[in-house]
């Protein structure tokens, strides 16, 4: 690892990979620091080593990540694995630890692409063994090929919950119930955004397919669920909840919770980048211009770590940020940058509309 790179990208999910590929293509010397052992971030976690069976289980979106990973591995980017960044300041000084050894480096431009994490969903008993997140289920499946072998409960709201349900049903896992906490009031609000969202019909189709899989498997779905509690002695035994005015409880030793994902903004905050509270998403986001430039000179933030948009938006945004870095570092002129960016803006608008 050198002590200086023109561009350092932190994170190797879709945004980080796309950014590094794009910048490297335009002649920028770029180092990618990845806390994981292989590229993909969370969404494409371990996609390069995934068996055909696993790819079929996880679905087309996951398998598509393999293409991006291949492109990244073939690029000229210097890729550092098991490299955990623990320091970043507004002058782009970076502290990173790899294999127990600390390194300090500097960069002319830094791109923070550290992604998102699940919105914590504290419920009574959430510290019990057997209470995990939907994302945890995903990691177990993607990285270890591990799935539950006894009936489970899914609880919360959001697309990832449905995706996990669909994948688990495909894998033969029994789902005893889905506890949908989406409040009744949200549906009319969502409907008002419908015309705008129809620009991204494929997302709707995917959502419809997920619901269909759940209906076909006759998984009991409880709506407008509130007051979820997990109980047990040394581990989870039961989940109780209210739904449509009734109290219920279900015996289970595994419940996966989910309330959407939120940007992990710590690194941007540590570097002094401005963040803003987004009321619609109920989370902090990094303030950036449309190229991903934050309020700190030379520091960019892109992908789900800046604001939640999903993998496709992250990839497109990453490529745009890579272009901008190539431009600010003097490798391509403004016209060339704009020429490459034009198509990307259009793609991003479509995916963002959902």
């Amino acid at each position, binding site marked *: 690892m050198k002590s200086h790179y023109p561009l350092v990208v932190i994170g190797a999910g879709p945004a980080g990979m796309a950014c590094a590929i794009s910048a490297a293509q335009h002649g920028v010397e770029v180092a990618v620091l990845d*806390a994981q*052992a292989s590229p993909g971030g*969370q969404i494409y976690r371990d996609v390069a080593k995934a068996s055909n069976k696993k790819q079929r289980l996880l679905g087309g979106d996951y398998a598509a990540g393999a293409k991006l990973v291949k492109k990244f591995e073939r690029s000229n980017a210097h890729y550092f694995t098991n490299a955990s960044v623990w320091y970043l300041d507004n002058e782009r000084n970076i502290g990173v630890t790899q294999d127990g050894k600390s390194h300090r480096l500097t960069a002319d431009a830094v791109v923070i692409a550290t992604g998102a994490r699940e919105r914590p969903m504290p419920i009574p008993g959430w*510290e019990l063994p057997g*209470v995990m*997140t939907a994302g945890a289920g995903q990691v177990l499946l993607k990285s270890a*090929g591990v799935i539950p072998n*006894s009936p489970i409960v899914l609880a919360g709201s959001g697309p990832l919950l449905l995706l996990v349900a669909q994948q688990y049903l495909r894998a033969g896992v029994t789902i005893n119930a889905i506890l949908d906490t989406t409040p009744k009031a949200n549906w009319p609000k969502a409907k008002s955004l419908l015309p705008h969202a129809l620009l991204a019909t494929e997302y709707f189709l995917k959502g419809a397919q997920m619901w269909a899989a759940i209906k076909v498997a006759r998984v009991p779905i409880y709506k407008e669920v509130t007051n979820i509690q997990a109980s047990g002695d040394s581990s989870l035994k039961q989940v109780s909840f209210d739904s449509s005015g009734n109290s219920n409880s279900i015996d289970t030793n595994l419940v996966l919770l989910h309330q959407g994902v939120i940007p992990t903004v710590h690194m941007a905050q540590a570097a002094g980048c401005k963040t803003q509270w987004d009321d619609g998403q109920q989370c902090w986001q990094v303030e950036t211009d449309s190229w991903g430039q934050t309020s700190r000179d030379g520091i960019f933030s892109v992908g789900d770590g800046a604001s939640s948009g999903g993998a496709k938006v992250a990839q497109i945004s990453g490529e745009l940020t890579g272009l901008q870095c190539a431009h600010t570092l003097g490798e391509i002129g403004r016209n060339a940058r704009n020429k490459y960016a034009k198509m990307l803006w259009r793609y991003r608008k479509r995916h963002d509309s959902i």
Partner: protein
Amino acid sequence: MFKRIDGESTAEVSIMLDGERINVPADISVAAALLLRGEQHFRNSEIDSSFRAPYCMMGACFECLIEIDGRKNQRACQFNVTEGMNVRRQLAVPQSEDVK
């Protein structure tokens, strides 16, 4: 509680868990390996001694802390098992109960 899907590699490594030699699938995290064995008790909470196990599996929650090769408080979900790895669960209750 957990099992492996078909089609995964059958490679294994042997590790020590609390002094006992066990065989686990290679190339998976310590957390996944323990969960696969039905292990639901990774550590005792330092505050109330309750049993704790992984929650997020991605390094954000710090619930899966375990001792690996003599280093305490390692996130079990962040390290893959290696041949001969020495894993110890952190089961000690606070030393200074009376000083609380």
